């Protein structure tokens, strides 16, 4: 029962490692800036605000889907802790 509870907590918490965090940050920043610029340009060229906001909405959903869940890709560099020192060892 405790094990199940732990797994649920972990899934909800969705922790990722340090490398993963760096990656998520980069992905979110670059893709959102690109998305803003592209949706503006597409709308301007097509002369349609609808195109802009549909594209922006779809793009936002995709970015959130990529960055929010703790995908295994973001957990490939677990921290390697030093082994526990034996008690009394010098």
């Amino acid at each position, binding site marked *: 029962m405790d094990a199940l509870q732990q797994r649920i907590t972990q899934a909800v918490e*969705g922790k990722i490692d340090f490398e993963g965090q760096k990656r998520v940050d980069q992905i979110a920043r670059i893709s959102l800036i690109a998305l803003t610029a592209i949706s503006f340009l597409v709308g301007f060229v097509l002369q349609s605000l609808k195109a802009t906001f549909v594209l922006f909405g779809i793009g936002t959903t995709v970015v959130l889907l990529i960055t929010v869940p703790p995908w295994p890709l973001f957990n490939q560099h677990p921290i390697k802790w030093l082994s526990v020192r034996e008690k009394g060892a010098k």
Partner: protein
Amino acid sequence: MHTTYARINNVTAFLSSCTMVLLAAIALSSLVFTANPKGEIIVSPMQIYAGNTRRYMNKKQDVAFLNFNLTADLKPLFNWNTKQLFLYVQAEYTNAQGIQNEAVIWDKIIRTKEEADLSLTGRNKYLFRNLGSSFKNAQPAHFSLKYNVMPYVGLLTYGEAARTGVPIPFPEKRSEVA
């Protein structure tokens, strides 16, 4: 960025900044479109009758009636950021006291680009009255067709699409409706 909640928070915070930039860019893009379409307004001679005023039971007030023709192709005003146009015909005249007056006598809302190629005849939709009781000794009036562009995002802009070449004089008051 270590937990799901922190990632939602971070990504949506940056998303809101991006949305602001996008909206600002759209608002600023309106400045690129500098269409200034011109049309024509022709106003027939006015007729003036004494009418009852709502405010004072026993007082008569001059009311002017007129017909006009409008032709104007306002399609160029529609760009990606145009929601609708508000058109109005404005009478501009100096009354006997030497005061410059501007009165809106007709208006129309244009919602689509297809509607924007105007060719219509109309008459004053709103009662055209002088603030005093009479148009007597008022200077001849100019009439202009003005527009107000309402964007989806950004500032309202105003412009003038047409103006009468020769001012229209106020005629003598007629006592009875013919």
